[in-house]
């Protein structure tokens, strides 16, 4: 077929705009009949053109593909025009911790997760399965043949990750925790960052500034310091 660069970029924009699921490079290249390298270059250009300040929408790499989203800073304006708000994904801290263990140790069995968390996780696992954030991944060939779990595509999408490798390494969390502790000398930690954050939305929405701050923090991976809050 061979499209001009301008046509290719326009076709990519149209496709990503319309697609239900994140569109992968391979899918896009094969549907448009173009070389992957050419498509990748056009995608980079498309992503860059949406990144500019004057755009309210962006094209992001998520769950191994590309997908269009509104930018977080416009959430207040956008929310008013959405009648059918999707139910928020409400996860408890135990559920998030279990998810974190699976994300880093996958594939992991129930007993392995329990060992790390120090408590029984079966109930949480069922919740995560039902919310489709984790999936089963066969069985481990040890006594009892326990079921293995790994995170799903839904997990990547719900947490805005293009791949689990995108998560900071566990080592970084250790270093951050130590730093946070050092910086915090003399201040008793009465409330961890999470509950402070959670309090912002018991039904209401966190303010714009908070979302932006969280966005910035998450982007730089600097968030892990739990104990540095308050």
């Amino acid at each position: 077929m061979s499209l001009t660069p301008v046509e290719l970029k326009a076709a990519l924009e149209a496709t990503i705009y319309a697609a239900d699921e994140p569109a992968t490079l391979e899918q896009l290249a094969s549907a448009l009949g173009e070389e992957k390298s050419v498509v990748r270059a056009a995608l980079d250009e498309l992503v860059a053109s949406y990144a500019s300040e004057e755009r309210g929408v962006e094209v992001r790499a998520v769950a191994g593909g590309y997908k269009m989203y509104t930018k977080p800073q416009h959430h207040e304006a956008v929310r008013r025009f959405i009648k059918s708000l999707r139910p928020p994904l409400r996860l408890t801290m135990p559920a998030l911790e279990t998810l974190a263990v699976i994300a880093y140790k996958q594939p992991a069995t129930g007993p392995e997760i329990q060992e790390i968390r120090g408590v029984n996780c079966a109930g949480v696992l069922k919740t995560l399965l039902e919310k489709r954030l984790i999936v089963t991944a066969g069985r481990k060939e040890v006594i009892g043949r326990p079921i293995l779990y790994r995170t799903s595509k839904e997990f990547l999408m719900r947490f805005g990750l293009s791949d689990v490798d995108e998560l900071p390494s566990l080592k970084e969390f250790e270093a951050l925790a130590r730093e946070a502790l050092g910086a915090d000398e003399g201040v008793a930690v009465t409330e961890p960052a999470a509950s402070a954050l959670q309090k912002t939305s018991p039904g209401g929405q966190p303010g714009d500034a908070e979302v932006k701050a969280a966005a910035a923090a998450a982007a730089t991976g600097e968030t892990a310091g739990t104990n540095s809050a308050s």
Partner: protein
Amino acid sequence: MATPYKIQIPMYEGPLDLLLDLIRKQEMDIHNIPIAKITGQYLEYLHKLEALDIDVSADFIYMAATLILIKSKMLLPPDPLAGPEEQEDPRADLVHRLVEHEKFKNAAQLLYQKQQIEEHVWSRPDRSLYEGEEAEGEITVSLVDLIKVFQEVLERRKEVTKIALSHDQFTVAQMMEELRKQLIAGEDGVRLVAFFEACPSRHAMIVAFLAVLEMVRLQAVVLTQEQLFGEIVLRKHKMFDVVFSGGGAERSVPDETALNKIDEQYQ
């Protein structure tokens, strides 16, 4: 009503959370935990829970035992025969677990923040180009749906059984038919006691017992018991399909008069 004294007691999901909190709040060095002090504080917390009449889970109690063990090991003089490298700190395992646990707690915080951001952005695929793709009444299914649905089907089957068993009069043939249905539907056989208990009357129970005996005789089922005094489970046996294909059961069951005689004997 308010209690006579103020109770403010923090709650922890598990023993590791409690320990980490004690360590962090008091700015202890996680790699050099004052084990006697921590053990004391840990036990004090459990006692508070007990005073409030709160069930302390096994996880917490197991950790208490672990702490006490470590504490007593710390009191022992070091092994004079072991070199300095061989002297393992009795706390090492616990420290490792705590450090690991904390890393994942921090990772969970990051996930929480990332997820918060995603709650504030929207994606709107252009559905107009998908029209006609989805048939009415279809749902996207996953493995979890598969097992959940199977469970529901079996539950529904049990309900049907209950209704069927609430008739007043049974014949052995009917009861065998009922057992056959349950054997086909059940995951791993039929639990004998449960089956008898589901019978609405003594008469029904006797008929059920005769039906089981008859099926064993015909080698349609086999009774298994995994351990002494364990539960007796009824399972399909080699002649199951033969006995139950095309009225085989009808032919070989005792006739009504014989049954009535048995019933009379019991009355």
